[in-house]
């Protein structure tokens, strides 16, 4: 099974566990935005907004580009896809295990039939 870096998933979960940060991501899903735009949209201080954005940046969910005096933020959904891959990995794992379970039960049955006819 593919192993995922625990530190990056932890940062992702940490970033996603806060309502304001999720709202920021949803906003950025529509379009890029300046830090000041986000602060006014969520009626929180610029300072508080900046802290939330730094958490999102550390988790790799938001990237920042400096355009003149403006800091423009963009969404990067890549890390979430990594989490989705993690789930897909488990789907495959259990699908394979259940196939092996069927094989096991069939083999066992055939063995006992074989024994009872001897």
């Amino acid at each position: 099974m593919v192993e995922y870096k625990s530190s990056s998933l932890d940062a992702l979960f940490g970033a996603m566990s806060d309502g304001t940060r999720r709202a920021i991501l949803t906003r950025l899903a529509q379009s890029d935005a300046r830090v000041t735009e986000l602060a006014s949209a969520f009626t929180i201080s610029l300072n508080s907004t900046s802290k939330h954005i730094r958490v999102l940046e550390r988790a790799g969910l938001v990237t920042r580009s400096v355009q003149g005096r403006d800091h423009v933020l963009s969404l990067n959904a890549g890390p979430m896809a990594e989490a989705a891959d993690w789930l897909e990995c488990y789907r495959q794992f259990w699908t394979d295990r259940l196939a092996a379970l069927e094989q096991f039960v069939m083999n066992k049955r055939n063995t006992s039939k074989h024994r009872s006819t001897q």
Partner: protein
Amino acid sequence: MTPTQSSDADAAALACERNRHDSIVVKRNFHATVDELFCAWLDAESLAQWMHPGTTSPSTATVDARVGGAFEVVMHYPDGPKRHHGEYRVIERNRKLVFTWISDATHHTKTLVTVDFHASLAGTEIVLTHERMPDHEAGLSHERGWTAAFDLLQILLPA
């Protein structure tokens, strides 16, 4: 080389689907009795024989088949052994098994596996649900993060 192995009629009965965004559901129909299948989960020797990554040697399994009892399955992958372990939460003979599931792949956090056994026309249907553990203390923010991540994913990456 054949691209798939789906010629078996049983393959049609194999279905995977998502229920919530943060969990997986795998269903499969078996030409076997509920009793045969249920026992295969709780007997250590049986478990070791089927719960392994296919091409490699059998797993090493221990099972304490009672609620609160622990199990361990060490799967021998080509690149080394991988330990999976947990604790039984619900054991309803021939109906339901619920256990926690911890491994490297879960980052050593508790996840929850529910196995439901239903008698079906073919024999038995197993519905396996694997979800992030609603571990009410430590796991809560983790779980919330997980759910939120998949909710957002639905929005951001429409299928």
